[in-house]
């Protein structure tokens, strides 16, 4: 499988990358780790005339925890997310999810920026970012702007990122909430049949905050405000969890594909969301 011809660019900084995107418009694509884009190019499902490889842009590889905010550069790989101790402490949810993405070889090159910017509803990071209430920084010809992860996804592969913008970094509040990322997949390397990210904060016996997001159960990631609201103010008993699961499922819109019919996906989603809530609670 050999992709169609393209011109290869390797800019050294964000500014040059943005001007390449500006020059070539929708004929250009940004290449991060490439493990979503290159397979699509090999299948000739993605037509790319100009490939802008951003591997040399050092500033995109930085990550830090400053005060209560976690900053992660777009080119930080899943392998680094797993092995970075300060990130694992500030956001253990990220490490737990990263360990469940693809396989070791893919995690060495797969980046957080590529995963969130691609707009594939099957990618794990978008739901995770919605759960964490992350903010994306985008650089374009007229400078930098930010977009909330919860407002970034429009439909499958359609996002708020314009053709001449690059997603440069991600920021979200550090959290000590109980966490869990549960993922059902057919085999290692497969995308989720259903996955759920959950954060729960308990004040004594009462839930004071809850955030629940799901992966691959609609044409965008699904952050279910209603599911979180169903837990807040309760002691998260069995009936409360059942109400949260029902609310979460109500926000999904799965379609039939090789991973199963709609009814099956809803069933799996219910099991996965419940498991994620219970595990997050056990850590809250």
């Amino acid at each position, binding site marked *: *499988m*050999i992709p169609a011809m393209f011109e290869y660019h390797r800019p050294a900084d964000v500014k040059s990358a943005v001007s390449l995107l500006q020059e070539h418009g929708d004929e250009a694509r940004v290449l991060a780790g490439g493990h979503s884009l*290159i*397979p699509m190019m090999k299948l000739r499902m993605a037509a790319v005339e100009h490939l802008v490889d951003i591997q040399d842009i050092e500033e995109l590889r930085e990550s830090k925890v400053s005060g209560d905010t976690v900053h992660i550069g777009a080119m930080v790989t899943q392998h680094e997310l797993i092995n970075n101790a300060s990130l694992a402490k500030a956001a253990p949810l990220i490490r737990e999810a990263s360990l469940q993405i693809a396989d*070791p*070889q893919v995690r*060495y090159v797969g980046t957080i920026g590529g995963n969130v910017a691609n707009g594939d509803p099957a990618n794990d990071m978008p739901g995770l970012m919605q759960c964490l209430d992350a903010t994306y920084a985008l650089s374009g010809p007229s400078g930098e702007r930010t977009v909330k992860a919860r407002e970034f996804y429009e439909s499958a592969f359609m996002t708020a990122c314009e053709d001449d913008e690059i997603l440069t970094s991600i920021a979200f509040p550090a959290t000590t909430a109980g966490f869990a990322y549960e993922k059902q997949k057919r085999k*290692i390397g497969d995308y989720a049949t259903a996955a759920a990210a959950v954060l729960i904060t308990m004040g004594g016996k009462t839930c004071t905050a809850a955030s629940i997001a799901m992966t691959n159960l609609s044409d965008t990631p699904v952050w279910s405000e209603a599911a979180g609201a169903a837990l807040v103010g309760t002691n998260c008993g069995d009936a409360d969890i059942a109400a949260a699961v029902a609310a979460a499922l109500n926000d999904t819109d799965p379609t039939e594909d090789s991973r199963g019919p709609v009814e099956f996906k809803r069933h799996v989603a219910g099991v996965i969301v419940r498991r994620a809530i219970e595990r997050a609670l056990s850590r809250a």
Partner: protein
Amino acid sequence: MSKMHLKLKVNGEEKELLAEPRELLIHVLRERLDITGPHIGCETSHCGACTLEMNGKSVKSCTVFAAQANGAEITTIEGLAEPGTMNVLQNAFREHHGLQCGFCTPGMITRAHRLLQEIPNPTEEEVRHGMAGNLCRCTGYQNIVKSILAAASEMNAAKEAAE
């Protein structure tokens, strides 16, 4: 579209060539540089037969453009031992029947090599998790895991003896 001038360091040797940007690293290695250790199995980044080491990372070279590897250091199975000899992992795979048809073996051993650099004394679970990107359709993994664990203890014993 013009060809690009690429420089790669493969198994310690500087290589220079002209390639189209769309050429995949696995194709350039096998067809231009005659380095045929990394195999083409699925060619869809699932099977891991094309695994090699690029700048200290295990990667599937069917999903990397040679242009991305410009300036990189690459190690394939050919670079793990002197020609005509075998390294500890290769010996362990032979001793413990870690291969049958051998097609997946270069990818398995190159990946295991990196895994043991990062986790010198892995548990069985760590080996299974660390090798999850490589598929074998013959041995059923049991002996592959056994070979890697045996190589790890041999390497650790040698390290201790040297200290």
